[in-house]
């Protein structure tokens, strides 16, 4: 009975260290937070702008990732083409690529002098860097692979039997996808979206490199935190606190549905 109840210390001790390591910095943030000055910092236009831009950008990036990433995940999961493994490796590269490198790559592709951006500028006069659209582009580039990889795994694991049954009952391939396959991978879709949103919300390197930094237009919360640390550390802590709260809210808001969805087949 004891053997069953007691946890082996070689596991519990490192587990405790890991938990402490992950939580202590957050405690530090809470302890050092200038609680009294918080309303003053949070009411400033720059903070309101940055928060609005962050939520807007991350939402847009998640919507685009869903619209484009889910079909990509489906193709990666279902295609029998030989080159698909290479494609999978390449499109998930931003997962491991340092975001700053991603930002440089985006500049060279979609910048005013970039291989694509040059023609876009010549044809329409539109340039992406230093615009809010540029922020969304940077965030989508970094965050979409999280959604793709999560949903692709679900597509692979999904029971093909249901799809085949629907097909034999006369459903078109598109109907099978929207009415059968998508509901099957629902929990992963949600999990992938949350991961994607969270990654987009925290995105820093690609954003500051590709979209630059201008309050109200491209300065998202992470940029505001980083830059505030140089001039006004108290404000940086306050901003970090807000970002922490938003993250907790996102997790808490989805936690119930996520767990619930995960426990039902």
């Amino acid at each position: 009975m004891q053997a069953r109840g007691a946890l082996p210390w070689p596991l519990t001790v490192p587990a405790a260290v890991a938990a402490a390591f992950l939580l202590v910095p957050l405690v530090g943030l809470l302890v050092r937070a200038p609680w009294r000055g918080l309303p003053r910092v949070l009411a400033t236009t720059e903070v309101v702008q940055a928060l609005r831009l962050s939520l807007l950008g991350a939402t847009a990036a998640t919507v685009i990732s869903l619209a484009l990433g889910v079909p990509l995940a489906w193709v990666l999961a279902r295609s029998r083409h030989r080159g698909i493994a290479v494609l999978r490796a390449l499109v998930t590269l931003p997962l491991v690529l340092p975001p700053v490198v991603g930002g440089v790559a985006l500049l060279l592709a979609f910048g005013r002098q970039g291989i694509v951006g040059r023609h876009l500028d010549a044809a329409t006069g539109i340039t992406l860097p230093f615009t809010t659209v540029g922020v969304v582009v940077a965030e989508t580039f970094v965050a979409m692979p999280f959604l793709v990889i999560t949903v692709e795994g679900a597509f692979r694991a999904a029971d093909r039997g249901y799809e085949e049954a629907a097909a034999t009952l006369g459903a078109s391939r598109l109907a099978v996808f929207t009415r059968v396959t998508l509901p099957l991978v629902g929990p992963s879709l949600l999990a992938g979206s949350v991961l994607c949103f969270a990654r987009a919300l925290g995105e820093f390197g690609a954003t500051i490199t590709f979209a630059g930094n201008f309050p109200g237009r491209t300065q998202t919360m992470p940029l505001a935190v980083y830059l505030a640390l140089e001039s006004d550390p108290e404000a940086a802590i306050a901003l970090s606190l807000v970002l922490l709260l938003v993250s907790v809210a996102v997790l808490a808001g989805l936690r119930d549905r996520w767990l619930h969805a995960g426990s039902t087949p």
Partner: protein
Amino acid sequence: MNRAFLSLTAVALVLTGCGSSGAPGTSAARATSASPGVPSAPAVSGTVNVFAAASLKEAFTALGTSFEAAHPGTKVVFNFGPSSGLATQIASGAPADVFASASTKSMDQVVKAGAAAAPRDFAKNTMEIAVPPKNPAGIAGVSDLAKPGVKVALCQAAVPCGSTAATVFGKARIMVTPVTQEVDVKAVLSKVSLGEVDAGVVYVTDVLAAGEKVKGVVIPADVNASTTYPIATLPKSTNAVAAQAFTDYVLSTDGGAALAAAGFVKP
């Protein structure tokens, strides 16, 4: 001619005297003695961590190499970045031995935090407009930066290059709305050299260091502004001897010559 030479030597000697232990670094000492330098009391060796303003990158990298050559067994490790950011890092205990700031404000911040003492000014820098080699927006002067549709990159206001640029705009009585406020002056320069912006306001030294990658548009003296660079060894340094030697080297005539070659002026 002879007198000029003598007075130069005198200046060198005086400067050497100012820097307490910088004797082996001066040109006079090196030129006259082929055998390894003048024996100074404590041996200069080990690693010196120098936190320096981004605009000092090229000049200090060159200075570091010649310092290492003059003091075998030493290694100078640089951390270049925005002075304001470096000041925050040092105040929060970053392991630095020397701090070279692009403004007295950032240095004062460190002094106030008790992390530096007795800073000394070693250089001055003025601003210049950097444009891509083809100058797509046809920038010819400061007032062109205020034109609508011209994409300008500036340093953010907390960084010395940002506040100095703001002084220039104030003197020129213009309002410039940048498309981006970059982290440090080198980030502004790279946005210009990549052709992503039409112009950036950087230091004279940055335009010089960038070579062919950008073109400079001079800001006339009557509207131009400058910033002063102080340097200090940090009391918490774990290698105070080498830190002092490097600081003295920067303040020496050799150091001054290297800085002048990079476009800096005397403080």
